[in-house]
């Protein structure tokens, strides 16, 4: 059966209901440039989606040397053919007229075009001079969650063994650092326990700060199809906004920002008190249950209700659902990761599963989600504040093993302290000891908190900034050298989604002008720098994506993220496969921890853990005495009040977040016409009650201000909780007259107003815990807010706001097997 649907107006497309335990039916989504028929497509090139973390498998349609559309891969385990709106339309950004096509260097204060030799020459001579004068601590690398595995691994070898710096991190610090930290705290090692197929079996699904409908629309389609089928699961949603998830939830809890730990401790209190715990599992597989029991003893729903400002009865109802589940799946995302006490809260979700014994079986899983498409690889490859292959920097044997793989001495690899996290790198740059920062594939001048500060840091004369990107982003405009990179679809590589599924992503067309694959740029730098191993051979001995993948396989061998059973060819031909994939598991591994928590053993664990409040590292001996047998660690945490609370002057809680139609700082989605039109401009969300109190109405131009800065946008009145103001964080300045900064006192980027504060354990910045005030700038005069109506920003009232639609340019074709 074929159906045509406007996928801007109906982001999740038509339903294919299925029942508990059944296989999710296929539905093949296809979008081709209007006027192009399927018969005109010359080649279909296998790839996967890069505008979220879901890893939707697709084929890129090529005709006459250009990308003309995309089609989902029905056989793939992740999406069974479906694509989200960003997958369907986002590829058009590749062909934008303003792509970078030549390197740029700063001369006389201006960025001017040059050739690769000149640009790389400057980067290399600055690197060598700094190494000579100050040492490796002068150089830092800030990468992303949007490159490919082969690129991160190469960068990790260059930074850690070539330069020998501890300063390498990804913008994954902003999206997924807490996921990694929470997994390390509970299970001793990174690695997603659950699988997307757990949704096929679950009877209760709890989503904690995870607006899945907008951040992972294809996964939400899976849940929607379960909800329409027989034995639908019941949903628990924790989110202060009226998200599409909240609207379908059996219990919706909308807590005050910064109170997740209080809420979770109350859930744990009820579950333990009502005896909903699996004592056999706890005894066999965990340590720390007694401490948790003591910690949550006083955390009654009534206590949490006062802190979170949600009804105690709702907390009890949520605890009943979670406590009574036979097959419980929990997911966690930015509402937890970017909020106060991030790791402490994420760990309590793991604890819900540990005390209930809900792991390692179909329908029993935790999914600590990622925000970006390749964030998992940033983590695995050691480009996100860990050593490659989940090796433990505090374990001398792990460092020696890595040194063996790289054929360098162990002292070559810095391991005297944890790898430097991104926020600390920016602090070192601000304070003056970090003198060169190489930024690849990310846009900190829009995405980091407190942008006036970030612009000040990046604009310093004493800091040499290299930016490698597709476009002249806000950050690139502040660079000393700009390197034009090839986009997805213009280069080859692999990447891994949030449920450990590895996909191949092929080169469909050539990059524009002189733009080069990120891998080729890193390889060129390594060659020009002349990095050597301890026998004088080139440190980076590979030359293309396939040989880089093989090098990574050697590094991953025997590690939890074992890739030795995979190859470019196997992935290209067979579709997505979940790691670990090796001789013992040639078809991959659906669930981790089916037989205990072997990676938590003191000899093999990736981390000995941290104090969840102070961030202090545990010492090896401490961990060994706490967890000698290598079990899962049930780690309790006390609730602490948020660092910046509301006041008379700043009475509202400010949270920032995402919308379905955009990704990150809009560098791609803002250049895809259908996506851009669906959410063309920043807006501000407030509840009806709050708006009435402030005498504000839909469409009014308002200013949201904090002690750091201010943002202007039109007001959308939604069913968000009272006392809270929401700003989407996607909007920057590249498509404004000023280019990289606000024109006046107030800006368009939400991060003008956010606070510089991060979780002490995961070092993830907090974008959801700040205090703000709102004021009227200008009455609406009939103009509604430019916010989508299909999402969490749907207007609370009816009338006056036209529905978000995409029109004929946004119609995609959907093919399903005929149903009765």
């Amino acid at each position, binding site marked *: 059966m074929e159906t045509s649907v406007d996928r801007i107006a109906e982001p999740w497309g038509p339903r294919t209901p299925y029942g508990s335990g059944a296989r999710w039916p296929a539905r093949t989504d296809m979008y081709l440039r209007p006027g192009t028929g399927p018969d005109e497509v010359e080649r279909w090139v296998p790839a996967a989606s890069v505008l979220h973390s879901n890893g939707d498998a697709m084929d890129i349609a090529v005709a006459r040397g250009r990308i003309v559309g995309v089609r989902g891969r029905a056989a793939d385990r992740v999406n069974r053919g479906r694509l989200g709106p960003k997958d369907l339309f986002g590829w058009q950004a590749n062909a934008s007229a303003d792509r970078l096509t030549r390197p740029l260097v700063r001369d006389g204060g201006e960025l001017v075009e040059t050739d690769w030799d000149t640009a790389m020459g400057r980067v290399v001579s600055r690197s060598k001079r700094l190494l000579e004068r*100050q*040492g490796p*601590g*002068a150089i830092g690398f800030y990468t992303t969650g949007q490159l490919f595995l082969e690129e991160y691994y190469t960068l990790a070898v260059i930074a850690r063994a070539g330069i020998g710096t*501890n300063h390498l991190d990804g913008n994954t610090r902003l999206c997924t650092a807490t996921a990694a930290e929470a997994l390390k705290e509970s299970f001793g090692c990174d690695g997603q326990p659950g699988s997307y197929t757990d949704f096929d079996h679950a009877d209760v699904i709890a989503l904690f700060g995870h607006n899945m409908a907008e951040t992972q629309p294809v996964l939400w389609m899976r849940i929607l199809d379960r909800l329409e089928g027989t034995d639908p699961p019941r949903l628990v949603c924790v989110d202060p906004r009226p998200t599409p998830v909240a609207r379908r939830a059996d219990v919706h809890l909308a807590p005050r920002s910064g109170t997740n730990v209080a809420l979770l401790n109350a859930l744990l209190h009820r579950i333990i008190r009502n005896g909903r715990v699996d004592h056999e599992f706890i005894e066999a597989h965990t340590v720390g249950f007694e401490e948790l029991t003591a910690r949550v003893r006083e955390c009654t729903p009534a206590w949490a209700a006062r802190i979170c400002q949600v009804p105690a009865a709702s907390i009890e109802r949520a605890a009943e659902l979670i406590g009574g589940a036979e097959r419980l799946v929990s997911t966690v995302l930015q509402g937890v990761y970017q909020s106060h006490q991030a790791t402490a809260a994420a760990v309590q979700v793991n604890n819900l599963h540990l005390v209930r014994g809900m792991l390692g079986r179909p329908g029993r899983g935790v999914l600590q989600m990622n925000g970006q498409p390749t964030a998992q690889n940033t983590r695995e490859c050691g480009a996100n504040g860990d050593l490659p292959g989940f090796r433990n920097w505090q374990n001398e044997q792990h460092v020696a093993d890595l040194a063996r793989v790289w054929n360098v001495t162990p002292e070559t690899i810095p391991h*005297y*302290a*944890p790898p*430097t996290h991104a*926020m*600390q790198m920016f*602090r*070192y740059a*601000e*304070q*003056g*000891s*970090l003198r060169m920062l190489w930024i690849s594939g990310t846009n900190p001048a829009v995405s980091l908190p407190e942008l006036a500060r970030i612009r000040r840091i990046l604009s310093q004369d004493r800091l040499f900034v290299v930016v490698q990107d597709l476009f002249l982003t806000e950050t690139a405009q502040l660079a000393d050298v700009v390197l034009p990179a090839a986009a997805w679809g213009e280069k080859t590589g692999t990447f891994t989604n949030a449920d450990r599924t590895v996909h191949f992503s092929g080169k469909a067309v050539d990059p524009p002008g002189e733009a080069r694959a990120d891998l080729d740029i890193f390889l060129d730098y390594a060659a020009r720098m002349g990095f050597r191993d301890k026998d004088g051979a080139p440190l980076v001995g590979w030359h293309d994506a396939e040989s880089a993948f093989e090098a990574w396989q050697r590094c991953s061998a025997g590690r939890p993220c074992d890739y030795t059973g995979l190859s470019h060819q196997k992935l290209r031909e067979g579709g997505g496969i979940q790691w670990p994939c090796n001789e013992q598991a040639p078809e991959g591994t659906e669930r981790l921890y089916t037989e205990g928590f072997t990676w938590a053993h003191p000899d093999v664990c990736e981390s000995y853990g941290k*104090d969840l*409040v*102070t*961030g*202090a*590292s545990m010492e090896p001996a401490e961990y060994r005495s706490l967890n000698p047998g290598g079990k899962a660690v049930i780690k309790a945490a006390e609730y*602490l009040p948020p*660092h910046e609370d509301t006041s008379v002057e700043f009475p509202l809680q400010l949270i920032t977040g995402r919308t379905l139609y955009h990704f990150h700082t809009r560098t791609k989605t803002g250049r895809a016409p259908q996506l851009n039109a669906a959410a063309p401009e920043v807006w501000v969300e407030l509840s009806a009650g709050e708006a009435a109190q402030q005498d504000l109405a839909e469409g009014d131009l308002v200013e949201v201000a904090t002690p750091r800065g201010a943002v202007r946008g039109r007001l959308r009145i939604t069913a968000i909780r009272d006392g809270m103001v929401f700003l989407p964080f996607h909007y920057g300045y590249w498509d404004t007259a000023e280019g990289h900064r606000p024109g006046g006192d107030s800006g368009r980027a939400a991060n003008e107003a956010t606070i*510089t*504060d*991060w979780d*002490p354990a995961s*070092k993830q910045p907090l974008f959801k815990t700040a205090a703000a005030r709102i004021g009227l700038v200008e009455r609406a005069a009939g103009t509604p807010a430019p916010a989508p109506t299909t999402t969490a920003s749907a207007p609370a009232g009816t009338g006056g706001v036209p529905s978000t639609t995409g029109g004929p340019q946004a119609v995609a074709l959907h093919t399903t097997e005929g149903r009765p």
Partner: protein
Amino acid sequence: MNGVKLTLRALHHGERALERRLLAVAQRHRTEHEIHHVSRDLARWSREHAARLAEQGRHYGLDLSGPAGHLPADALAVLRERAAVAMGRRREAGLLLLHDLRSLYLSAAGNSVHWEMLAQTAQATKDTGLLALVSSCHPQTLRQVRWANTMIKNLAPQLLSGL
């Protein structure tokens, strides 16, 4: 009981001093965001410890004052924060930070030793009230020590070699 009274008094003094130090460090290193925020969280523990020690002291006829008021936003505090912002772009500020972390470490370690003395004596004299107090507070003091130690370990290499 005189020895216990003396130790309670000394520890009460030590916890109040640590609270003041933590809050002063939070202001002096306004541009070191993690130090700024976590110091204030840790100051809360010392404040609670001082209050509970004063409460416990009453059983021994000790009149220890309650917790100090919140550090006022006085001229000195404002000055400290302004100085922090002005100094925040200089590499030399790193030395001051390490110096302050060292003094926090020593201050918290001193308190920890006093808690240890009280714990031992409470066990020997079967003073269950005192033992309960120590069991609840001493772990937090140890966490303050570990925090200062971790920050020194993580920051010293860059701050000292990047001068």
